[in-house]
């Protein structure tokens, strides 16, 4: 199959800007703090304790990270399985975000795990524990990360074919790498469809299981969120946030590289976003009604306020906004509406994993420490930096006039 279709090209813009400087500072701070955590232990850095074993790093770095990487499988399914070819320009950036997103889920997990060097244990057959939802999540995420790297390989092949060269001391590997990529390109052109479908299946599995994780704590998770259909809600919300995340990123990177937002793709995509957000909203509200849990909405607690903000500002408001054609056609309104959806799903993950988690013997509430927050911010900053490096080297973003030359490739050969 024609893997990625439309012309994409490396971005030809100056790499260092003040914004990049800020990101580098955040990344450096996080690097230092991570080192500190590895030397002095979790207690020295986090506000985690025996009552609150999971905090910001699991809720945001892992759970939210996985949800917001959903643009990868939703746009792959849309273009390569349901053949909506007009959306091809967003597939490569979404794929890159997913690939980096899942890689950083792994990095975030390394900081949080007490015995991070045992992270390979779930892959070892003698330690498989099929009853564990976390086992399923772990295996799927590992498998999907591999699939994402494979899906990204054609982009690297294209880079090589168009004269991309390894730089610095890596140049000694130039020839073997080039040969490997040629073989990979030939093999993948025939088999890519298998990986694309596998990616969608694996995503559906672990996106839903991420919700099933908290079903093991029926007496600790607040009834506004605890429902047997939590896995379904997680899957639906991941699908619902996929396209908004793609739109969000596309507009942020357009702004960053001083390009015109691709409204001819984003406006129709927002109609799909509206559809899936509607399905999620219907499921969420129906669930609340069926379980008679809506009584908790008006008890004035912190949890009820957070639920109202999550559903009100993160689901209902953007849904109503996107109903209007004017919003879908206006770059700034479209950006606002989709940012709300992205924040809404992020808040949902934070709510399920932190706010809803209410252990009986707790003497105080868990609030993330400055160190936890800075490491999370640093991870996000590093992800954005790597994204910027990748789109500068590889043909990821749609080709724009004047941007055809690879900036870091030194020389472009035909």
């Amino acid at each position: 199959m024609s893997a990625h279709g439309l012309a994409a090209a490396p971005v030809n813009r100056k790499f260092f800007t003040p914004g990049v400087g800020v990101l580098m500072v955040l990344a450096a701070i996080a690097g230092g703090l991570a080192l500190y955590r590895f030397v002095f232990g979790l207690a020295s850095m986090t506000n985690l304790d025996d009552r609150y074993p999971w905090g910001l790093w699991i809720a945001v770095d892992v759970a939210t990270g996985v949800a917001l990487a959903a643009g990868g499988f939703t746009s792959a399914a849309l273009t390569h399985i349901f053949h909506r070819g007009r959306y091809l320009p967003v597939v490569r950036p979404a794929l890159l975000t997913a690939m980096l997103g899942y890689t950083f889920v792994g990095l975030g997990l390394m900081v949080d795990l007490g015995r991070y060097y045992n992270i390979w244990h779930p892959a070892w057959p003698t330690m498989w524990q099929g009853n564990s939802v976390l086992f399923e999540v772990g295996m799927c995420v590992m498998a999907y990360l591999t699939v994402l790297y494979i899906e990204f390989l054609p982009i690297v092949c294209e880079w090589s074919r168009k004269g991309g060269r390894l730089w610095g001391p890596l140049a000694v590997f130039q020839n073997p790498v080039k040969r490997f990529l040629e073989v990979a390109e030939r093999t993948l052109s025939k088999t890519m469809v298998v990986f694309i479908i596998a990616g969608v299946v694996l995503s559906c599995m672990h996106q839903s299981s991420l919700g099933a994780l908290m079903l093991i704590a029926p007496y600790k998770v607040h009834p506004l969120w605890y429902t047997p259909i939590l896995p379904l809600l997680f899957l639906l919300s991941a699908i619902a946030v996929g396209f908004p995340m793609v739109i969000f990123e596309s507009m942020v990177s357009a702004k960053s590289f001083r390009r015109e937002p691709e409204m001819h793709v984003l406006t129709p995509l927002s109609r799909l976003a509206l559809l899936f957000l509607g399905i999620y909203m219907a499921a969420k509200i129906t669930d609340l009604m069926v379980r008679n849990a809506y009584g908790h909405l008006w008890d004035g607690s912190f949890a009820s306020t957070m639920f109202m903000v999550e559903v009100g500002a993160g689901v209902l408001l953007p849904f109503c906004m996107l109903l209007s054609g004017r919003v879908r056609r206006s770059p700034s309104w479209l950006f606002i509406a989709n940012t709300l959806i992205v924040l809404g799903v992020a808040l949902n993950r934070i709510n399920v994993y932190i706010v809803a988690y209410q252990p009986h013997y707790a003497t105080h509430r868990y609030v993330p420490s400055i160190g936890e927050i800075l490491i999370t911010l640093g991870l996000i900053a590093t992800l954005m930096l790597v994204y910027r490096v990748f789109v500068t080297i590889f043909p990821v973003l749609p080709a724009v006039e004047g941007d055809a030359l690879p900036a870091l490739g030194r020389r472009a050969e035909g």
Partner: protein
Amino acid sequence: MELNRRGFLHLLGAGATCMCAGPALGESNDPTEDDGMAMLVDTTECIGCRKCEFACDQAQGLSGRSRESFEDTSVFDQPRRMVADAYTVVNRYPQPNTPDQPIYVKSQCMHCVKPACVSACLVGALTTAENGAVVYDAGKCMGCRYCMVACPFEVPAYEYSDPLTPRVRKCVFCFERVKNEAKIPACAEMCPPMCLTYGKRTELLALAHERIAKYPDKYVNNVYGEHEVGGTRWLYLAAKPFEELGFLTLGDKPIPQLTETLQHSIFKFGIPPLLLFGVLGAAITAFKDDSSHGAASAKDASSSKPKGVS
């Protein structure tokens, strides 16, 4: 094989039906569930001497504090929970009517018959030993702490300060000691037998109900742990309703039942994922390309909108 969009939708419906058929099965019944060992705690007999805490500390090599430090009764002023170097703690519950006779309650891992932590652990670091004790293998553990999320009694503690080899810490029912040295758990050995009784779970339940029947004025008619979360191996007798003594009110359903049923029906023999794989594969041939190159584009933009399925 000619597959159009209508045919694809039929396939989708068939797939959904198959997936819904699963959940009826799934629950496995462990025939040995009552064969294991257990401990009966008669809280009416406890005098708050904290010797069980000391015995546990010694036997498990925990904090290594002196015997005298365990005689300090000022710890009763604040409610305590188990921590990384204390597998068991005794708490005091003052009684307004009889101020000189407070009620003492010993807490530790309840050793559930269907433990949530064992079900949650993704690498099998927590397992149920043959006599029923829930034991921990630090060598397998990744330190994800999902067991702590899962435990309904909030028992497992963690060595957050250890940067390299932190462990999940909880009562292991003196498993090694019982198995290798043919002894009973250290706390029970130290405590007068009326207060802590070690034995087969079935026999202890019978004994507990016998005591209740014999002294109906002394006990509430309830054995905590008989049914809670599907049964636990630590059973309690008390003179007061258990919720007044720091016990959580928990239902009878085993905690892992929902997740395991969901998990094993959604992934039953890998059929549903493979089915989804097939459905998506079929979709690839069923859906026409709408890409903007070629003649298809103009027509496509107006007529076949990707409603519903895409």
